[in-house]
């Protein structure tokens, strides 16, 4: 029987979601006949992974150590196959400022943005340049921590005077913030599974913003799979998602978040290299729409890691 270590928890701010993902994945893998152990991140992790003779690791870690390439690099080092993209792809996708630069230089549409660090504000008087940010990007804006997920620390800014406060919120989560032009349109999440693009999930939060509450409160958001887009737009979205993933070298399973504007142009916002696997998560929804059960999805990811 193949032994799988399901990694979840950790010290990241997304620990709670990670534990939920881990529990669901572990249950599904057990149902499929795997010998499953759930591991949290602690100082014994490497020893546990080495001594207990696992065949693979299923990464359900969200946030810093799980998505920035740290755990992937460590697993490479101890030669334990793992689910999800490589350490390098994870590292590139984890930092939104890095990922957006790479996409922009490969002519992929991503909303115009400005990067601002807490140290630039503190030590270089960057606050004096905020009016230029608004001049350049217009309003409304989205302000988010450059690193981090689950919409933590993300704020929509519709008036210039709210920008400093939104930056302070983002800086609570990470020292670097990105300020992005807010694109009005349809929010979609596209799962790229190896060479396959799964049907886009359309996200319509009932209260306007797809924030933490809208993500994890059952029923607070309406989801449509496949997204209600015409054929040409669907193709453009799929193409953009593929492009976004391939630019960062991504394979295995990645979720791309995009906004489709009124003209049908898809704008890439970010990639999630360890997407949520909870009951309200988007990737399992997309898989389900193709007839792939959650158990089958987890099984496929493990089998791929083992190849």
């Amino acid at each position, binding site marked *: 029987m193949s032994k799988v270590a399901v990694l979840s928890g950790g010290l990241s*701010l997304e*620990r709670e979601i990670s534990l939920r993902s881990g529990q669901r994945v572990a249950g599904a893998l057990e149902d499929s006949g795997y010998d499953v152990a759930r591991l949290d991140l602690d100082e014994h992790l490497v020893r546990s992974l080495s001594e207990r003779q696992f065949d693979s690791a299923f990464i359900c870690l969200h946030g810093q150590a799980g998505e920035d390439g740290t755990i992937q690099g460590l697993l490479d080092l101890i030669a334990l196959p793992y689910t999800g993209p490589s350490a390098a792809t994870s590292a590139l996708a984890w930092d939104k400022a890095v990922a957006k630069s790479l996409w922009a230089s490969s002519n992929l549409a991503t909303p115009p943005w400005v990067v601002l660090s807490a140290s630039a504000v*503190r030590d270089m008087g960057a*606050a004096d340049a905020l009016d230029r940010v608004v001049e350049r990007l217009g309003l409304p804006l989205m302000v988010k921590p450059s690193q981090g997920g689950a919409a933590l620390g993300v704020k929509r800014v519709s008036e210039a005077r709210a920008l400093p406060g939104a930056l302070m919120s983002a*800086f609570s989560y990470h020292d670097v913030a990105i300020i992005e032009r807010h694109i009005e349109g349809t929010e979609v999440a596209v799962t790229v599974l190896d060479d396959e693009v799964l049907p886009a999930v359309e996200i319509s939060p009932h209260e306007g913003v797809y924030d933490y509450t809208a993500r*994890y409160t059952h029923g*607070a958001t309406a989801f449509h799979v496949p997204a*209600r887009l015409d054929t040409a737009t669907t193709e453009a979205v799929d193409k953009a998602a593929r492009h976004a993933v391939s630019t960062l070298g991504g394979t295995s399973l990645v979720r791309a978040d995009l906004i489709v504007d009124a003209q049908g142009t898809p704008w890439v916002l970010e990639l999630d290299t360890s997407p949520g696997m909870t009951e309200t998560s988007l990737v399992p*929804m997309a898989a389900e729409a193709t007839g792939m059960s959650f158990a089958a999805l987890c099984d496929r990811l493990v089998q791929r890691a083992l190849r």
Partner: protein
Amino acid sequence: MSEVRVDPNLARYASRASALRASEIRALFSVASRPEVVSLAGGMPDTAALDLDAVGSMLQTLMAEDGARALQYGGGQGDPELREQLCEVMAAEGIEARADDLVVTTGGQQALDLLAKMLCDPGDTVVAEGPSYVGALGAFQSYEAQVVHVPMDAEGMDPGQLEDVLAQLHREGRAPKMLYTVPSHQNPAGVSLSLERREQVIALAQRWDVLVVEDNPYGLLDFKGEHHPPLYTLDPTRVVYVGTLSKLFSPGIRVGWVMAPGALRDKLVQLKESADLCQSNLTQALAARWLRDQSWHDQIDRFRELYRNRCRALTDALAAEMPPGCDWSQPTGGLFVWARVPEGIDTGELLAKALTARVAYVPGRAFYADGSGARELRLNFSFCDEDRLREGVQRLAGVVTEELELRAAFGSQLGEDER
């Protein structure tokens, strides 16, 4: 249709349940339970300071002597012997209680839930201190009651403000269903209602004909072993008293109680029975034996001394480490310090940064039903040892200092959009 129904029961929820939301802050607390994080967030007594061997042998004797009964159902009002013992606990604060007036509940929390269930229809008004115990707010809100706060200062709830609130509610035709208060070593504010104010509060309750719910988990945890008379003693016909063994013995046994006169008690017994039939006989028997056979007064003295020292360690560290512009309560008992950071800092938003620096606290907004408390935070001193407390404060001070520097760099730009 391509719509995915994440929750097929969505249309079935009662309004009190559909109002429940996933909370970012609640999720963040998941990290606080990790050993790397100094958690000043919880409200846990230090159960390691109990004589666990003695509790162990008590359990063994209990099983040998009375096991079949302890593992059986019990009556809805609670074990008569335990109720007698609980009267002794209240006697330590000067209350003359009759065991027959008590209903044993699953912690003080269930007493609050049953009281809200008994008294509050949707839209009804409850008056409570601001800030107030978060669990009470949750119980009131789950019965869709509206909470109106009365501000506090170093002597507890301000009677002048209470009068204003009661008068205003009267003008609006909103007779409050109860005045909920934690008069001694209040959670979270860490202050006690002075004797003079106790009399004023009761006089106001009489004048405006308001039922008072006195929640008293910490009365015996005064650092000097002193206490003010419970509100109950000032007007036993008007005050419903809620007690608990959670902070005196163990929160794990879930033994609390509510003392209410006549008709209220009868309804509470019926509500208790429909909620969970009866309190666990096992933990009731354990509690009764602990109160009967152990020198529980001495144990409370040990807790008092332990918490006094820890409180001093925490407040000394705050004085040494926190940047100017912060202030905090000077508790004389209980488990909590209530602190305030400089204008503009939002402790809810700061929590992420604090957790990254590996210290946790509870943001102030949790303790208000009206969204205030952004600058405030609650710090617990009963659970961590003194070194951990100092370490926690050092981390917290670092985070607040950094936040202030950053805010200063934004200058007047930040003031413009402040709430």
